[in-house]
């Protein structure tokens, strides 16, 4: 038998049937649901008089629209409220596993799924959200889908798919102190571009990936979509198994033993063939900062902003010029001279306990720069918040001048009240720096939690390693 990639194995285990042209019916084990992309799917189901095929496969929670004000009980915005109430209704009507507002387990769907063990190795996981790639960190095949596909999975437990090509991104060696999973993935995107992974499922491997915690692996897989790949994944190892063990949805006792046996095969075989292999040297990766309006517009903190005059491709040059204009930045300006208005620590990329610990370690005993209008910490879930409070991290943040909020997507996409005003610069630990992403006219710079923390103290970007 030829050696197989992890993706080959996950794919093969879930194919229900394949047409001669390669179009396959792929079985979906776990369907995560949130309020924004599901109402039209539930409605479609109802209009067609269909029932969910396997409602036990669904785990639902509101996250995108929910307020983050400490102790909030209602949503003021009537349109947001209706959307959340619609999810409440649909979850109840179909008796789904549901974490409503007020439930300590509620949070960002990509933080909660793994935290509850609802994401397990070897699963296919989908959600009407592009950052579903996060769950691939568990040796799962996980990808985002649109609302019609959400309805399709609800109705049939399957998706119509064609197999993607396989890419291996291997990060060799060890990262230097002060460099994190976020810097690794930003460096990868900087190298292959936001469309570099289009049409591929990416496996992240190499010593630097192996050395990451599950939180770090989730950060890397989370941003696979920012490299254009619908799915990112990491092979299963002891780190994975230790994380999953004893989680509420994880198998127990004899079934755990049985599961372990099958999960140990969830890696690419030694001589597996990939359609493309990209390598990076971990030791060369420095803390990264995005300067533009696409995640590929990224450089090391010690670098300068690129000069469009140096770019020969006219479309790319126009893109750089447009981005600099939107961001209000000059060519050749040092990254450390970018002054900040707000700092946001949170999101499904960096809203986990490890991330909050890393930020708190930088902040401890210091103060947010007086020039900053706001510094916000939004834990990824109620349980992350609880854990952080048990460790006293909330005090470290609030003593420094940060606001400590309720969990949710918050300023990652600004669907709730947390947003930038036009022209404001924000150091954000989230995943997208698109125009208007954090509020119309807002200017986002993507960084790691440690870099965001250091920037909050300085009021501008600084190299966290020398801070």
């Amino acid at each position, binding site marked *: 038998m030829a050696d197989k990639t992890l993706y080959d194995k996950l794919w093969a285990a879930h194919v*229900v*049937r394949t*047409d001669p*042209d390669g*179009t396959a*019916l792929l*079985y979906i*084990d776990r369907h995560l649901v949130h309020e924004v*992309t599901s*109402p*039209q799917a539930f409605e479609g189901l109802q209009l*067609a008089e*269909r029932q969910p095929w396997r409602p*036990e496969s669904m785990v639902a929670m509101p996250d*995108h629209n929910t307020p983050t004000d400490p102790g909030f009980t209602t949503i003021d*915005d009537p*349109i947001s409220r*209706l*959307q959340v109430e619609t999810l409440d209704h649909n979850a109840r009507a179909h008796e789904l596993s549901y974490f409503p507002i007020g439930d300590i387990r509620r949070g960002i769907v990509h933080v909660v799924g793994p935290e509850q063990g609802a994401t*397990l190795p070897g*699963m296919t996981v989908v959600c009407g*959200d*592009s950052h579903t790639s996060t769950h691939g960190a568990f040796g799962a095949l996980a990808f*985002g889908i*649109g*609302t*019609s*596909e959400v309805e*399709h999975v609800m*109705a049939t*437990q*399957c998706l*119509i798919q*064609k197999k993607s090509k396989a890419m291996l991104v291997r990060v060799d060696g060890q990262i230097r102190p002060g460099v994190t999973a976020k810097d690794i993935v930003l460096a990868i995107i900087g190298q292959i571009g*936001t*469309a570099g992974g*289009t*049409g591929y499922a990416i496996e992240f491997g190499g010593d630097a990936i192996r050395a990451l915690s599950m939180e770090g692996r989730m950060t890397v897989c989370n941003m696979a*979509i920012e490299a254009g*790949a*619908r799915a990112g994944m990491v092979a299963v190892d002891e780190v994975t198994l230790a994380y999953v063990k004893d989680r509420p*949805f*994880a*198998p127990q006792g004899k*079934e755990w033993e*049985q*599961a372990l046996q*099958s999960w140990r095969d969830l890696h690419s075989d030694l001589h597996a063939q990939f359609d493309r292999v990209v390598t990076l040297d971990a030791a060369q990766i420095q803390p990264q900062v995005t300067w533009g309006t*696409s995640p590929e517009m990224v450089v090391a903190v010690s670098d300068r902003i690129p000069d469009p005059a140096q770019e020969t491709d006219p*479309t790319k040059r*126009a*893109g750089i010029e*447009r981005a600099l204009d939107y961001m209000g930045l000059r060519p050749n300006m040092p990254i450390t001279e970018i002054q900040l208005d707000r700092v946001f620590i949170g999101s499904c990329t960096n809203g986990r306990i490890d991330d909050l610990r890393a930020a708190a370690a930088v902040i401890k005993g210091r103060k947010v720069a007086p020039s900053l209008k706001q510094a916000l910490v939004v834990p990824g879930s109620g349980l992350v918040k609880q854990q952080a409070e048990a460790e006293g991290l909330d005090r470290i943040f609030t003593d420094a001048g940060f606001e400590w909020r309720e969990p949710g997507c918050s300023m990652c*996409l600004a*669907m709730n009240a947390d947003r930038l005003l036009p022209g404001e610069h924000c150091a954000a630990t989230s995943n*997208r720096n*698109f*125009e*208007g*992403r954090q509020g119309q006219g807002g200017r986002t710079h993507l960084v790691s939690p440690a870099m965001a923390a250091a920037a909050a103290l300085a009021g501008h970007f600084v190299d966290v390693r020398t801070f």
Partner: protein
Amino acid sequence: MQAFTRLDGLVVPMDRANVDTDAIIPKQFLKSIKRTGFGPHLFDEWRYLDRGEPGMDNSQRSPNPEFCLNLPRYQGASILLARENFGCGSSREHAVWALDEYGIRCVIAPSFADIFFTNCFKSGLLPLQLPAETVDSLFREITTRPGYRLTVDLLAQSVLTPKGAVFGFQIDPFRKECLINGWDDIELTLRHAEDIRAYEARRRQQAPWLFQ
């Protein structure tokens, strides 16, 4: 789903790469629980100078006179000509609904982001991929010729320009079938319900923990 066979339409050019779905339909409009109402807010942040909110009367707002969709010569366009990596970012199918409701039935670009590409087919919109050089030549022709139209023939897999040039394009045969017939793919899948149940029975033996 509406079928797509042949389209003769006015073309609007959007000369920028990496157009993301946040730009196509900004997040504040995603609060809706409906499938309609997105067309008036297609590209809202680029199309208007003020900030758009759901339920706003767009006739009272100030349009950006420089934005391509607002130029008089492109009114009524049903084909959008775009650059690399169109539709990247968020999985929001609302982006496709907004394009469709506005009247765009076909987007031509050198490449598309995967999720957006898949979403298009669910609403009977054709994401048509042409080589970068061809797209480049179309951009050049549009600027020199007012009222520039293209004829897209899905059956023949061809694009016809006003000068009479014909470009062929590739499309997955299954997706083509679905578009031409306007098929509901849930219906198609449910024809294989027995296969799905058989798979489940088998899988339940091998990996019972997946079914709890």
